[in-house]
């Protein structure tokens, strides 16, 4: 496969799978037939971004992320409420109110964990990614999640470091108790989200996107 074919293939792959199934082969042939300068590449890149923003794929991913966020928020809030016996959120009354309050306090960290936890799974499944048809967007989310998780941990460390002798001790405290169970739950939930989001006939669409030899 020539460099030109590779560039065209990469450009077409930027479009959502659903779109590629419909228009991928035509666009591929046009790009191979015409002049492929920086202007054409920028034009296709912009178009692909617009289609991505409009695609049901992205909307579904955001919806799943939102549902996961709410579930994780309630789970972490509930586990924190149990651990602290309604501690700092006592004034909100009732376990549900406390769960909601504590959940929102700790949610950013656990949302980070939710996507961050996908990374080990993604790495393990790496060679199987094509066969499993896992969406690239999930891996991008995982990367963002890891960065967010690390960022939130760092902020917590800066705020609370007077209570700990070492960063390791801080990490152990964070992950002990509710942290461990939540990360485990996040691992399961995150994996379920990724697997449920895979396109059904990716293999077929990939074949269609291959440039024709004519």
């Amino acid at each position: 496969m020539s460099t030109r074919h590779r560039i065209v293939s990469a450009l077409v792959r930027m479009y959502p799978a659903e779109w590629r199934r419909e228009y991928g082969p035509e666009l591929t042939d046009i790009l191979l037939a015409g002049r492929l300068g920086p202007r054409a590449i920028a034009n296709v890149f912009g178009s692909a971004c617009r289609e991505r923003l409009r695609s049901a794929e992205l909307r579904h991913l955001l919806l799943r992320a939102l549902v996961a966020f709410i579930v994780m928020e309630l789970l972490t809030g509930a586990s924190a409420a149990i651990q602290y016996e309604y501690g700092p959120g006592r004034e909100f009354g009732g376990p549900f109110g406390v769960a909601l309050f504590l959940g929102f306090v700790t949610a950013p960290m656990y949302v980070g964990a939710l996507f961050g936890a996908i990374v080990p799974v993604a790495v393990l499944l790496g060679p199987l990614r094509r066969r499993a048809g896992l969406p690239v967007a999930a891996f991008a989310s995982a990367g963002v999640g890891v960065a967010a998780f690390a960022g939130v941990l760092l902020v917590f460390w800066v705020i609370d470091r007077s209570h700990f002798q070492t960063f390791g001790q801080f990490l152990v405290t964070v992950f002990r108790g509710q942290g461990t169970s939540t990360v485990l739950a996040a691992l399961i939930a995150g994996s379920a989200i990724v697997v449920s989001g895979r396109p059904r006939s990716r293999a077929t669409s990939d074949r269609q996107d291959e440039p024709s030899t004519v």
Partner: protein
Amino acid sequence: MARKPRGGPATDPELLILSSLAAGPQHGYGIMTDIREFAGVTLGPGTLYTAITRLVEKQLIAPQADSGRQRPYKLTRDGALALKQQLSDMRRVASIGLTRLRTT
């Protein structure tokens, strides 16, 4: 909606594609070449397919089935009506504008 290039309604990709298909069914590359010839506008491949996608969604054009990798697109009845309407509107606005220019 497809992004409109600068230059006014006569460079609107959707209008240009509809006008091109008024001559008969054509595939993507043919549409692009035709538009370059009759309007002097070069649509980028991304712009072309964004506009084609929107027009198909609005059912103003339709791909012809089982035509291989390069499917020709044809104007639908709604597409023809929409094109006629848009061109009439443009003619009316152009006519008023030109008349007013002559009187000033």
